[in-house]
């Protein structure tokens, strides 16, 4: 039998006993044990020992929180030591700090962007009960509701659908409007001030339900009130910037502002109020709201506010019922699929409707941002962790001394956590400063208006404080746990963390950074490649020098054409067919002799004159026929020819001369025919009328000798005196138009703006990826150089044993080489998957080449290899006596 005190009970005592009292209590019990064992036997002594331990289990002896004793002096010591270490390892501290600051700033940027995109339209009161009515016609979803008779609808009839909607008491308010930003309306209008001065306005919201408008959508009023603002039949509400534009920057001091007026098309509109400028996180933007009895458009955007006790499905049913009451014919129309409703706050991100008021956000891009933000966070923490762990190796003696002096494991852990937290928090204000500087550039690239809400919004402030805590804690955890677990003796012996075997955390992290380098590097490269491809691809027509303007009808077009034909700098003039559009509504079609099953609905119908083709540099032999007796020529593109030929089971060439039927469901009341019939005159080569995001769809182009109607006039101009020529065109335009100002569009610009979204996201991804790469490289280089430094002794010993410099370099590089290969193998499929996903947006895309991945991997190895070799060359060249001299 053991003649020592029972072990379990000893340990039990140690577990519950307060550290301050443990020594004396356990000493006493041990002494008593040996006394009793001597006097009355071991068994007795052990029994009494157990009882004594139990008896000591009272509050007096329990472990206590020793707060007062440790706080102030110990924290001060931690602080001092932390600062000393920062200074001692200057370069690494700077590297660490740089990484932290950059990382945190990027995370804040991602956060601000996400916060902005997700919060559109939330500022309207009770936005969750505001809905927009949308229409599904054919196979597409439209944000626009047409008036019964389109342009020709009488003012009273325009309100028809609204009246039907309001019959349901659960639908509280309804309004309809359109905007110059909408493709359904003219883009610009003249507005005349009292003094007769005419100004061009291109940001107008037209409504005929003014007072209800403010019940559905909420704006901040600076002058006037929502109830009365648009109560007049002809009234206007200005935004602050519009008020300055028309009434001077001192409009606020004008007490009589609400009795003034502006005139549009010779009608006076009373100023009903002034609201704050529309914030940029609103899906509808305008500078003034014009209330007029008849909206100048063929359709409108309908919004309503429902009462909270009406469910969305009830609303949907009611909206459709009201529509059937308003348009009884719709029930029989196969093309009218039905109406849907979209909740206001989700319009910006979720809407897939055509004719949106503002380019909608893409929720996929938010994912990109979120993921990149997380990647950067991980990289930042990884770097910090790696570097800190490496640095702690040099502080083993310090920790050993602390342990001897009585530091507990928990003390060591809290010391290191304190240090990492301290540095993280020191970097926070610098990061916020950097954020302030980079925000304007970010806003410029993304065409967005982010404010530094990190310092104003309480939610974001909380995040800003949480971030360094998270970074500090996660980065500090591993090294502090590793070091605090070691016994004091081990630490004094100076056992360096020589992870020779096994996949330690450090190796994994280094490998992970390699992975990021290769993955992000290649993805960035391919994104760039695709964008350049888009820009340089031949679209099938001329872009240079092509412009278009709006024109008020076929007659004015003819007159202007005659007048401008003789200008030597104007090379070609045409009507209609300006490419560079987002996909617009498609038509149904089939060959007349094909069966009813062969109806497709993806056709685009264009009406142009021969001049338009000349402007665009497209040629076709049938165009010669136009000048003879033929008044129009009907062409189809190759894609259409394929589809139609298959339906009749003939060869495409045989389609010429056959009859084609557009919109076969349309019943032409006059002569009983179904649809509109055309004879196919020719097949033209495919060209990209729409964006490269879509495959070329079947196109049906009606080329008229003299256009019967037109709204678009095209010019091909010589590059000499380009702008002078445009001036001449404008002068001619003004002779024939008085109500609408001219709008000149450059084809190259128009095409570029189609990919605006993609380009923005691409430049951002590239930017942030580059940053993540830079951070990774920084971290790796710092880590590698430190590791190499700590291996100085090893190198010295190897030299003593006869190793050559070359062999030493190889040895050190080998480990990183293996990691780099592994990382490349892992990164390749991941990056390939990511880039393939993005490329799916484009119908025309590059094929990512495999060699890029290999090159990236090699580059990686090269970078790290250089860092390692530079450092170790220095160490390898050193006299071994020197390197071994220092007892590290």
């Amino acid at each position: 039998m053991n003649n020592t005190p029972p072990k379990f009970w000893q340990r039990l005592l140690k577990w519950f006993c307060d550290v301050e009292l443990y020594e004396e209590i356990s000493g006493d019990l041990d002494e008593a044990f040996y006394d009793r064992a001597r006097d009355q036997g071991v068994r007795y002594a052990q029994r009494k020992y157990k009882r004594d331990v139990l008896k000591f289990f009272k509050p007096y002896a329990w472990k206590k929180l020793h707060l007062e004793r440790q706080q102030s002096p110990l924290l001060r010591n931690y602080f001092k030591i932390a600062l000393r270490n920062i200074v001692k390892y200057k370069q690494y501290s700077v590297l660490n700090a740089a990484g932290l600051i950059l990382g945190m700033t990027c995370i804040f940027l991602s956060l601000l962007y996400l916060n902005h995109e997700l919060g559109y339209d939330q500022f309207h009161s009770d936005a969750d009960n505001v809905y927009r009515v949308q229409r599904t016609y054919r196979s597409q979803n439209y944000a626009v509701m047409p008036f019964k008779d389109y342009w020709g609808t009488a003012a009273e009839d325009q309100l028809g659908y609204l009246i039907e909607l309001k019959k349901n008491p659960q639908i509280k308010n309804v309004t309809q409007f359109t905007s110059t930003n909408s493709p359904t309306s003219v883009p610009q209008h003249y507005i005349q001030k009292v003094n007769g001065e005419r100004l061009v306005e291109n940001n107008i919201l037209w409504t005929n339900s003014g007072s209800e408008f403010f019940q559905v959508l909420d704006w901040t009023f600076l002058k006037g009130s929502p109830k009365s603002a648009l109560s007049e039949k002809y009234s206007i509400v200005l935004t602050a910037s519009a008020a300055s534009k028309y009434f001077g920057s001192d409009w606020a001091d004008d007490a009589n502002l609400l009795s003034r007026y502006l005139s549009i098309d010779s009608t006076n509109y009373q100023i009903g109020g002034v609201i704050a400028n529309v914030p940029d996180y609103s899906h509808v933007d305008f500078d003034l709201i014009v209330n007029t009895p008849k909206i100048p458009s063929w359709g409108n955007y309908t919004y309503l506010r429902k009462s909270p006790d009406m469910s969305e499905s009830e609303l949907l049913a009611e909206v459709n019922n009201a529509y059937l009451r308003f348009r009884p014919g719709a029930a029989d129309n196969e093309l009218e699929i039905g109406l849907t409703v979209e909740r206001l706050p989700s319009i910006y991100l979720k809407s897939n409707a055509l004719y949106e008021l503002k380019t909608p956000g893409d929720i996929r891009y938010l994912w990109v941002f979120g993921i990149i933000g997380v990647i950067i966070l991980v990289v930042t923490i990884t770097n910090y962790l790696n570097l800190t762990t490496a640095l702690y190796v040099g502080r083993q003696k310090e920790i050993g001394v602390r342990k001897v002096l009585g530091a507990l494991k928990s003390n060591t852990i809290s010391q290191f956590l304190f240090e990492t937290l301290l540095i993280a928090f020191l970097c926070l204000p610098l990061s916020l400063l950097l954020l302030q500087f980079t925000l304007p550039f970010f806003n410029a690239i993304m065409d967005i208006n982010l404010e530094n809400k990190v310092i104003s919004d309480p939610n974001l402030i909380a995040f800003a404080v949480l971030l360094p805590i998270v970074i500090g804690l996660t980065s500090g955890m591993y090294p502090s746990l590793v070091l605090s677990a070691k016994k004091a003796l081990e630490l004094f012996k100076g056992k360096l963390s020589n992870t020779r075997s096994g996949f330690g955390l450090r190796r994994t992290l280094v490998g992970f950074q390699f992975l990021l380098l290769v993955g992000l590097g290649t993805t960035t490269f391919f994104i760039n490649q695709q964008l350049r491809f888009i820009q340089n691809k031949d679209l099938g027509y001329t872009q240079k020098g092509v412009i278009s303007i709006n024109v008020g009808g076929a007659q004015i077009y003819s007159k202007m054409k005659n007048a401008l034909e003789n200008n030597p700098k104007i090379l070609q003039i045409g009507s209609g067919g300006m490419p560079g559009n987002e996909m617009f509504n498609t038509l149904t079609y089939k060959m007349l002799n094909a069966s009813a099953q062969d109806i497709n609905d993806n056709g685009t119908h264009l009406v142009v004159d021969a001049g338009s083709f000349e402007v665009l540099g497209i040629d076709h032999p049938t165009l010669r026929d136009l000048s003879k007796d033929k008044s129009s020529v009907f062409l189809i593109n190759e894609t259409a020819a394929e589809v139609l030929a298959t339906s009749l089971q003939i060869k495409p060439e045989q389609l010429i001369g056959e009859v084609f039927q557009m919109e076969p469901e349309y019943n032409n009341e006059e002569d009983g025919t179904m649809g509109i019939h055309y004879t196919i005159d020719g097949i033209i080569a495919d060209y990209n009328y729409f964006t490269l995001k879509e495959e070329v769809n079947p196109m049906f182009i009606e080329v008229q000798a003299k256009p019967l109607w037109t709204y678009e006039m095209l010019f091909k101009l010589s590059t000499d005196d380009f702008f002078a020529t445009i001036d001449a065109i404008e002068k001619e335009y003004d002779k024939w138009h008085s109500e609408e100002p001219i709008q000149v569009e450059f084809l190259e610009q128009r095409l570029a703006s189609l990919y605006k979204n993609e380009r923005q996201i691409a430049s951002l991804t590239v930017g942030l990826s580059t940053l993540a790469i830079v951070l990774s490289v920084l971290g790796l280089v710092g880590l590698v150089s430190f590791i190499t430094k700590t291996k100085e002794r090893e190198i010295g010993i190897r030299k003593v044993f006869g190793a050559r410099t070359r062999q030493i370099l190889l040895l050190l590089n080998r480990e990183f080489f293996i990691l780099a290969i592994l990382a490349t193998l892992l990164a390749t499929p991941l990056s390939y998957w990511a880039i393939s996903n993005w490329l799916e947006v484009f119908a025309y895309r590059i094929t990512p080449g495999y060699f890029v991945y290999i090159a990236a991997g090699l580059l990686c190895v090269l970078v790290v290899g250089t860092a390692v070799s530079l450092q170790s060359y220095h160490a390898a060249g050193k006299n071994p006596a020197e390197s071994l001299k220092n007892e590290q």
Partner: protein
Amino acid sequence: MLQLGNLEETILLLVMIMKDQAYGYAVSKEYQKQNGKEISISAVHTVLSRLEKKGLINSEMRGSTEERGGRRKRIFKMTDYGIRTIQELKAHRIRLWDQLPQLG
């Protein structure tokens, strides 16, 4: 004047008697020797701690021995205040006893 419990007073006296040797286990042994009754070490520790809190005794960690596995003992000594208090107590007790008819 400070009130002391019976046990507290006893232990305080023992500390004074034991001079430099008064620590938990030793006091419990002495108590048993003097009173014939056993007392648990934990009870002694508790009382000593209380007496220290009241300022009647002081303590110091000293004297580690092999038997204790190198651990030191908490040795208690009387403070001046403690000495005065115990003397007052004694005087007070005697005053009371003196008021009774002589007990043989």
